């Protein structure tokens, strides 16, 4: 979807692409508008996450249809697919999966480059704004559609002076596939 850098070689040709700056500026004005509308940074964070969620539950189908991947056997696999396939496909960046918790239910996606936040410099009064919170929502929404309830939050953010973007993903529950009808219906 997003073209940036040299000719988007990592993207399969079947995907439509848009100019990276159009995308970045569009997202920027959305965030601006949300701040103007809600005036409360916490509320803006929540709205961004909700918007992301709504994108995620739709996006996962497109991803599964186009990504030619097989079933993930563990949460570890899933995290890898998100970092190495989904992010490159939709954002043209890839992430590293690190900081696994001992029980393998919590990990971090680390991005060093984030096209959402190009040009952005957070003013002092918006210190609490999670500028890229839409991504947290996307991941939560997408994984929920494949039966994983996760919690996503940004633990470091380059806009706030950290040295990378780190999205913490915590697997809360893996639901088994249930069909809403019984065999004899």
């Amino acid at each position: 979807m997003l073209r940036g850098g040299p000719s988007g070689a990592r993207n399969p040709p079947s995907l439509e692409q848009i100019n990276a700056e159009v995308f970045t500026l569009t997202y920027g004005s959305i965030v601006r508008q949300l701040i103007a509308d809600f005036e409360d940074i916490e509320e803006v964070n929540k709205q961004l996450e909700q918007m992301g969620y709504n994108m995620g539950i739709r996006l996962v189908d497109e991803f599964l249809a186009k990504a030619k991947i097989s079933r993930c056997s563990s949460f570890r696999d899933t995290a890898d697919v998100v970092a190495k396939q989904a992010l490159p496909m939709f954002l043209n960046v890839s992430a590293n999966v690190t900081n696994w918790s001992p029980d393998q239910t919590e990990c971090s996606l680390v991005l060093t480059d984030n096209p959402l936040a190009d040009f952005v410099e957070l003013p002092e009064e918006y210190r609490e704004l999670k500028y890229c919170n839409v991504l947290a929502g996307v991941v939560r929404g997408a994984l929920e559609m494949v039966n994983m309830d996760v919690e996503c939050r940004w633990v470091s953010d380059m806009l706030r002076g950290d040295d990378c973007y780190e999205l913490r993903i915590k697997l809360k529950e893996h639901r088994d596939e249930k069909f809403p009808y019984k065999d004899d219906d």
Partner: protein
Amino acid sequence: MGIAAVAFIGPQNNPLYLRSMDPSPSDDQYMKLHYVVHCALDAVEEKVLLKRGPSDSQDAYLGLLYPTEDYRVYGYLTNSHVKIILLFDDEGTIKNEMVLRVFRRLHALYVDTASNPFHSFGLPIRSGRFEAQLEGIVAVAPKPGASLGGFMT
């Protein structure tokens, strides 16, 4: 030869940014810079009226606007009528290509800064990143003996 000050002026001649590269400029010197840049705006207008018919291709680089006792004033006008003014020390020779290169980079820097969704258009630029990158650009032609710890508006 070195850059003594950088100024960005908006389309309505509203000041966006003025910075002296002198590490400890006095108030007097600061007023003088304002004055010199202010005069430069007239020179920009003159150049534009003289040089440009409606069909002329627009060249952003305006060249030397005018020399004062202490400075040589160069100008650059973007298509959205943002003016960039550079003040050079009146010493040694100044190569046009070098000036143009500095202007191009300052222009690119302004574009990036204006693309920040939190930048308020038409108001003075307040951005740490802008400052830092500007210092880097200006450092290609530093004022002899001056550090880059100058101050801003």
